[in-house]
């Protein structure tokens, strides 16, 4: 695969094939089968989400008595009790999750972009070794790392702090991999060479040429990393003791565990689960453009 091909792909991707299907004349229609299959898939995927939506409207008494998809009358009282639960700690979890996911994803994107650029656009001794080792990190199960990470953070006095959750999630091998591929495709060598002839330093090239060209790819990496951290459970679960630092996943899990003895908490869990997926769904809908265009040029070469 040549750079020429890549560039045309980028171009293609950026202009998105919106117009292209319009130009196609349907030749041998398969009837409604494709649409039907996709709709079935969509219904399957929406089933649990609609369940949580309906269940969040059920009051504690209704949850185990009303039939599955029959709406209840308790939405506002559920929201109220969630709001009142331990002085509104749920909203604190939401805020913490935003800090972890937002901050972590931002730092991760920067580190990945700079590394990806270096790996894609320079030839230097050890390049493949460093790349393979970094990528190898993806093979290490999270549980394997979480225990020693916790013990080591404790020795530094950093366990049970925001740092303990933020720092280990900055390095993300898959993001580096994506950034490398994206940089290789999106940054023409000729531009870098031209800059060098003009006497620009490598750092300046990175800042002025490489990173601006990589922004669409970085948005994608940011989104993936944001979702990954938002959904992470194990690391914060092990690192944090103070429930005022919990993210949503761990907070909801403690609610679930407590729910065993106080089943009225199930309503809070379900309402909380619903609220916890709303921000991400909003992110999906508003950032759709980036989920699409940039994966096409960045996911796989």
């Amino acid at each position, binding site marked *: 695969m040549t750079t020429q091909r890549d560039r045309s*792909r980028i171009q293609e991707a950026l202009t998105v094939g919106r117009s292209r299907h319009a130009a196609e004349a349907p*030749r041998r229609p*398969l009837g409604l089968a494709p649409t039907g299959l996709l709709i079935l898939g969509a219904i399957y995927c929406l089933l*649990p989400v609609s369940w949580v939506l309906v269940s969040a409207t059920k009051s504690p008494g209704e949850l185990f008595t009303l039939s599955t998809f029959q709406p209840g009358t308790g939405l506002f009282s559920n929201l109220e009790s969630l709001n009142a639960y331990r002085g509104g700690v749920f909203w604190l979890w939401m805020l913490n999750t935003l800090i972890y996911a937002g901050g972590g994803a931002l730092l991760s994107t920067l580190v990945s972009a700079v590394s990806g650029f270096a790996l894609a656009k320079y030839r230097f001794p050890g390049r493949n070794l460093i790349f393979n080792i970094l990528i190898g990190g993806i093979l290490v199960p999270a549980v394997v790392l979480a225990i020693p990470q916790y013990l080591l953070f404790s020795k530094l006095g950093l366990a049970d702090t925001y740092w303990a959750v933020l720092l280990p999630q900055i390095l993300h091998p898959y993001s580096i991999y994506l950034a490398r591929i994206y940089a290789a495709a999106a940054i023409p060598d000729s531009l870098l060479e031209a800059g060098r002839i003009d006497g620009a330093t490598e750092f300046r090239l990175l800042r002025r040429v490489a990173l601006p060209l990589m922004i669409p790819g970085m948005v994608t990496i940011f989104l993936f990393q944001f979702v990954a951290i938002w959904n992470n459970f194990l690391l914060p679960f092990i690192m944090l003791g103070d429930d005022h630092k919990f993210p949503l996943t761990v907070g909801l899990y403690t609610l679930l565990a407590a729910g065993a003895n106080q089943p009225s908490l199930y309503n809070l*869990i379900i309402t909380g689960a619903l609220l916890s997926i709303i921000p991400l769904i909003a992110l999906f809908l508003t950032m759709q453009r980036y989920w699409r265009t940039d994966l096409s040029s960045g996911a796989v070469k």
Partner: protein
Amino acid sequence: MPSKRGAAPYVFLAPAVTLFTLFLAVPIGYTVYLSLRRTKVKGLGLGKGAKTEIFVGWDNLKTAVTDPELWHGWERVVGYGALVLVVMLGFALLFALLLDSAHVRLSRFSRISIFLPYAVPGVVASLLWGFLYLPGMTPIGGIDFLSPTAVTYSMANIAVWGGTGFNMLVLYTNLRAIPQEYYEAARMDGAGELEIAFRIKIPILTPAIILTTVFSIIATIQVFTEPTTLRPFSNTISSTWSPLMKVYRDAFVTGDLYSAAATSLVIAAISLVLSFGFLRVVRGRAFGES
């Protein structure tokens, strides 16, 4: 052509390498260290100084490799993983091809809906499905989703539900990047959509399919959240259902960090062999290097 520019690439890679060292290499080293040790207690084990840490060499690793519980865990995960890989990636490919074909209505709605589960944390997804599986609450009657035979399928369903959309999107966006000209010639020859899909689209997608397969293999080897969250709902999932659950149990429930460290090294080694082996075979294509 990438060029040689002195120290610059090393400087650019310094943050990643530093983070790798601090949060991956050192913890892994520490895991190796722990795996070679064990605590020994004297007498009742109560009171000060009754417990000492000793060096035991390969003992923990030997135990981990020969532990039948761990191998049963591997058996279960292989069955579960094969199911997930085939169904999830099959559906992802099917949906991606359907979305890319010209005759689909409501494609935007379908695409977003199928991708939506990706936004749901694993803990929450398992919780939602757990409720939906309960005989007293499920809208689909007549099936005991949590019976010993069904539970693997039920668990696989959660993974398929959560993962299909992501893989579909990766494949779909790759399809969108295929230049139109590729199809023109085929159309000239009178090829239909099915033929185009099989003769052009799928071959071009192969590297992407390989890559999604590798990542899915890694994810299924490390399956943990789904069975852990489903356990309270069912009598059929043991605390060592998957190898990773055994690590968690050893480390956090039975408080044996040393066995946990040894077992996790075994898991990491198996992941490494499987995935790196797979990657090596297809490396030229997946990484786009000559």
